[in-house]
C-alpha cells in the first residue's frame, strides 16, 4: 500500500505542470491567419486595376452578368445586365470582408445583385419570399492570380470573379455595354428569324430569349422531329456567353459574338467565324414548333394585324350575337390550345358576364399531314359551350368543314389559314 502511495506521489511530481509550450504548427494563431487571409483577399479585390467581371446562373434558368470595382474604403461600384438601368447607371454601395464561418465577401447594402435575391416579387419577379434563390453573401473558396472562386452561403450560388481587362472596364464605364444591350434587343425584335448553317447544310434556327436569358438551337432531325439545344446565357461585352457549350455534330461553341459594325451575331468554331444569318420566316415550320415553343394561339376580342376581312366580320358578328343573346355576354380572349401528344385542340372561349369570367370549351380532335395541313373534328361539348353553341356556330362550322395551315405572322404572331376559303384567316398571340 505504501509503495502504491509512493508511486502515485512520484508520478504526480513528474506529471504536474510540465510546462512544455504548445506551439502552432502554422506558427501563428488561427485568428492571426484569418486576419491575414482577409487582408490578402481585400488587397486582391481592390488591387484589380480594371475591376472584376462575374456572373450568376439562378437555378430556375437564365444568366446574369455583373461588373464590379472594389475600393479600399469598403465600397463597390456595380454594373450588370439584370436591367437596362443596371447596364447604364453604376450603383455604388458597401461591401465587407468578414470571417463568418469562412472568410466571406458580403454585399451588405442593396445593389443590382440583390434584385435576384429580393423576396418581394414586385421588385424583379421571382418566387414570393425567395426571389431567384441567388446569394449576396459569399464564402471565398480559392484565389488565383486572375480569379477568385466563391460559393454563396445560403443557396450555394457559384460565382467566379475574373479580372476584367481595360477594354471591358471601358465598355461598361463609357456606356458602350449598355448601348450594345439595347442594340442586340432591337436587332432580335427586328429579325426574329435567324439561323446557323454548318457544313452539313442544315439550317439550325437560333432563338434568343432576352427575357428568360435563354439561347436555343432548334432543328429537325433525320426523322423530321424537332430537336432543341438550349442553355442559359448572360450578356458579356462581346455578346452572349452561354452557361454550357452548345454542341451540334462536331461543332461546339459557348459564345455568341455580336458584331456591332455589321449588326450581326457570329460564332467561332476553331477560330473560324460563322455568321448567324437572318431569314424572312421561321426556318422550322410553325406547325413543327407546336407543343415545343408554344401550345396556344390566343385570339383577342379586338382585331390585330393579320386578320382577313371575312374573319373580322365574323368575329364582330359573334361578339354582337353573344351580347344580344339571353346572357348578355362580352366576348373575351379565345384560346386555340393544342395537345400534340393527344392530337387534341381545345377551343376555349372566355366570356364575361357581370364582371365575372366564364369559359366555354369545345374540344376537337385533329390530324395533321407532314406538310402541316390540319383537319379538325368537333367532339361533344357541354356546360357553357352548349349555351353559346349557336353564337359560336360560324367559327365552329369553319373549323369543322375547312382544312387549315398555320404560319408565323409579323414575327411574334401565329396565323391560321383556311385552305378551302383563302379569304378566311386570322392571327393570335402565341403562348
Amino acid at each position: 500500500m505504501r509503495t502504491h502511495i509512493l508511486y502515485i506521489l512520484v508520478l504526480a511530481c513528474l506529471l504536474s505542470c510540465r510546462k512544455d509550450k504548445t506551439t502552432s504548427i502554422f506558427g501563428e494563431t488561427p485568428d492571426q491567419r484569418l486576419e491575414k487571409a482577409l487582408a490578402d483577399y481585400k488587397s486582391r479585390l481592390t488591387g484589380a486595376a480594371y475591376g472584376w467581371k462575374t456572373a450568376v446562373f439562378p437555378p430556375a434558368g437564365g444568366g446574369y452578368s455583373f461588373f464590379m470595382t472594389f475600393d479600399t474604403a469598403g465600397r463597390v461600384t456595380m454594373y450588370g445586365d439584370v436591367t437596362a438601368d443596371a447596364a447604364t447607371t453604376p450603383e455604388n454601395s458597401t461591401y465587407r470582408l468578414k470571417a463568418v464561418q469562412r472568410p466571406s465577401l458580403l454585399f451588405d447594402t442593396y445593389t443590382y445583385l440583390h434584385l435576384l435575391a429580393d423576396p418581394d416579387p414586385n421588385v424583379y419577379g421571382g418566387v414570393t419570399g425567395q426571389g431567384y434563390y441567388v446569394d449576396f453573401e459569399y464564402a471565398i473558396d480559392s484565389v488565383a492570380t486572375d480569379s477568385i472562386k466563391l460559393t454563396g452561403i445560403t443557396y450555394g450560388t457559384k460565382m467566379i470573379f475574373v479580372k476584367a481587362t481595360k477594354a471591358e472596364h471601358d465598355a461598361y464605364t463609357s456606356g458602350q455595354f449598355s448601348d450594345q444591350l439595347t442594340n442586340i434587343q432591337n436587332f432580335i425584335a427586328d429579325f426574329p428569324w435567324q439561323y446557323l448553317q454548318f457544313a452539313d447544310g442544315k439550317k439550325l434556327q437560333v432563338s434568343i430569349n432576352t427575357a428568360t436569358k435563354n439561347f436555343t438551337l432548334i432543328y429537325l432531325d433525320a426523322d423530321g422531329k424537332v430537336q432543341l439545344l438550349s442553355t442559359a446565357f448572360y450578356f458579356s461585352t462581346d455578346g452572349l456567353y452561354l452557361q454550357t457549350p452548345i454542341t451540334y455534330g462536331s461543332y461546339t461553341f459557348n459564345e455568341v459574338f455580336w458584331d456591332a459594325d455589321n449588326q450581326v451575331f457570329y460564332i467561332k468554331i476553331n477560330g473560324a467565324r460563322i455568321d448567324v444569318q437572318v431569314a424572312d420566316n421561321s426556318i422550322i415550320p410553325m406547325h413543327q414548333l407546336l407543343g415545343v415553343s408554344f401550345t396556344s394561339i390566343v385570339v383577342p376580342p379586338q382585331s390585330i394585324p393579320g386578320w382577313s376581312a371575312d374573319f373580322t366580320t365574323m368575329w364582330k358578328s359573334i361578339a354582337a350575337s353573344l351580347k344580344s343573346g339571353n346572357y348578355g355576354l362580352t366576348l373575351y380572349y379565345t384560346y386555340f390550345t393544342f395537345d400534340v401528344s393527344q392530337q387534341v385542340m381545345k377551343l376555349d372561349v372566355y366570356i364575361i358576364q357581370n364582371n365575372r369570367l366564364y369559359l366555354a370549351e369545345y374540344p376537337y380532335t385533329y390530324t395533321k399531314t407532314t406538310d402541316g395541313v390540319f383537319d379538325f373534328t368537333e367532339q361533344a361539348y357541354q356546360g357553357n359551350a352548349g349555351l353559346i353553341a349557336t353564337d359560336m356556330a360560324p367559327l365552329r362550322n369553319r373549323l369543322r368543314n375547312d382544312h387549315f395551315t398555320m404560319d408565323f405572322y409579323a414575327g411574334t404572331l401565329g396565323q391560321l389559314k383556311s385552305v378551302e376559303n383563302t379569304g378566311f384567316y386570322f392571327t393570335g398571340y402565341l403562348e
Partner: protein
Amino acid sequence: MKYLPIFLIMLIVACSKKDHLDTDLPGLGGETWVKGPLDFWLDTNFVYPYNIEVKYRFDRYELSLNKDLVPITESQVAPVMSTISKTWIKPYTDVAGDIFFKKYCQKQFVLVGSPQYNTNNTVTLGTAEGGRKVVLFDLNNFSLNNKPGVRQMLHTIHHEFAHILHQTIMYPVEFKTISTGYTGSWNDYSLAEALARGFVTQYARSAPDEDFVEMVSTMLVEGKSGFDAIVASAPSDGAAKLRQKEEVVVRYFKESWNIDFYTLQTTTQTAINNL
C-alpha cells in the same frame, strides 16, 4: 510524515511558471469599417445623443436565418431614420425631456430592405426583442408620400417603446379587466370582432400588455382624430371600453411619468403631418 519531502517537492515544482495572458486576439472588439458620411450622420444624430445603434449594413445574425431578406438601399437610411427622429424621438424629448428618453429608449435599430415573408402568406413589417432591439422591414419601399406606410412603421416603434415603459412601471391593473376575451389566436378574429370587445386592433386581443401598448401606439400614431374615428366605428359597448382604456392610458402617463399624453399626442401628430 515520511512523505513530507515529496509534498514539498511537489509544491516547489508545481506551477512555478507564470504566463502573462497577452495573446493577441485579432478580430475582437467588434466590427469596424471605414466610415462614410452616412455613418457619421448616424453617429451624430443617434449614437452620441441617445446611444442608439442603427444597423443598416446587412447582418444575417440579427435576423431570422430561415428567411430570405435583402439589405436596405443605402440612400433609404437617412429618410427612414430622420422620420423616426422627427416623429418618435422629438415628440418624446420635447414633452418628457431628454433624460427620460435617453434612459428608456430602445437602443438598436436593424434596417432591412424587403418585407419578411411568412409561411402563412403574411408579411412582417417590424419586430422587436426585449425592449432593446427593433427590426424594421420593407424599407426599400419606404416613401414619405406613403403616409399609411409611414404610420405603420412608426406604430411598431411606438408599440415597442410603450412596452419598455410599462415594464418599468406597471400600468393600473384595472386595465386588464376592461375587456374580456384575450386569446393567443388573435389573428383568427376580425377587426370588427376586436372592436366590438373594445380592442383597438386585432393584435391588441393577444394579451393585456399588448392591448395596452397597442392603445398607446394607435393613439399616438393615428392622432386624436384618427383614434376618435376608430372609436366611432366600434359598436357602443366596444366604444365605451375604448374610452375607458383611453382614460387609463392618459392617467398612467400622467401619474407614472408625469407626461401629458394629449400634448404628446398632438406633438406626434404635428410631426407626422409635417413630414
